[in-house]
């Protein structure tokens, strides 16, 4: 049941990434806004990798869990955008 729970949240993340792609496809300004958002997410992602120990203490989770979250976040973004762009 835990696997189903995590899988559903992963799918929700993928769909949210596709939704971002859809928003970007609506208007050039929306595209820029989404690009800015993606850039912000990328910077936050990179900083999270650099400050993983501090962040894990702040969020009260283990470093391994934080790293798993970061990797799965990247995977969700890539899959969601990939699905949107390929269709």
């Amino acid at each position: 049941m835990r696997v189903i729970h995590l899988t559903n949240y992963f799918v929700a993340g993928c769909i949210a990434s596709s939704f971002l792609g859809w928003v970007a496809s609506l208007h050039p300004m929306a595209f820029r806004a989404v690009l800015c958002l993606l850039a912000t997410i990328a910077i936050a992602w990179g900083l999270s990798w650099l400050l993983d120990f501090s962040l894990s203490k702040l969020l009260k989770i283990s470093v391994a869990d934080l790293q798993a979250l970061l990797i799965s976040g990247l995977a969700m973004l890539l899959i969601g955008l990939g699905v949107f762009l390929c269709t």
Partner: protein
Amino acid sequence: MHLKLFVLSASSVVLWLTPLSALDKTLGIHKALQGVSLTAAIACAVTAGNIARELSEQGEIEEIKARAITADVVDEIATSAYISQQQRQQEAEQILATDEEIDEQEAELNSIKESLELLLNQSSNDSGELAVVNLSTRQREQIELILQCHAKGISGKNKILKEVWGVSAGSSQAYRNAKAEYEYLMPFIKEEEEGG
């Protein structure tokens, strides 16, 4: 709950992929449909995730309950085994203690039997000696004192009572007791005098 979970999961995937791939792009409402279906897909996926999380937590609680019940049962079995072992040990100790008591009683009975046999032998040898043997130490001492009085020439009953028992003639209880005792000892005194 499980059916709802699986339906929501499947519909989220369908709502995510179908409008993106199968929808006719020449339609005017193409983008709007895509947006609606993606929003619905997100909602379905999040709801399915929440349901699955609840079920997972419930499963964990059930597992903890089952483990607690198992631990309780094991603990109860161990306790009952310990109690029965203690009871058996106590019973065994009681049986051993009873055996020891019986041994002691037997030993006491044997000693009484031996002394009775000895007395019986003595009585068969000399019946007079048995009577002296039955007197107490105090009575023997009193006999000795009376004999000494007789040797000194004191022969009156009242004088002897005064010398030996320390009581004067009268109607006191002590005098009467001393007199009764003196009369009881008289045959033995006579026997001693005749024998000595």
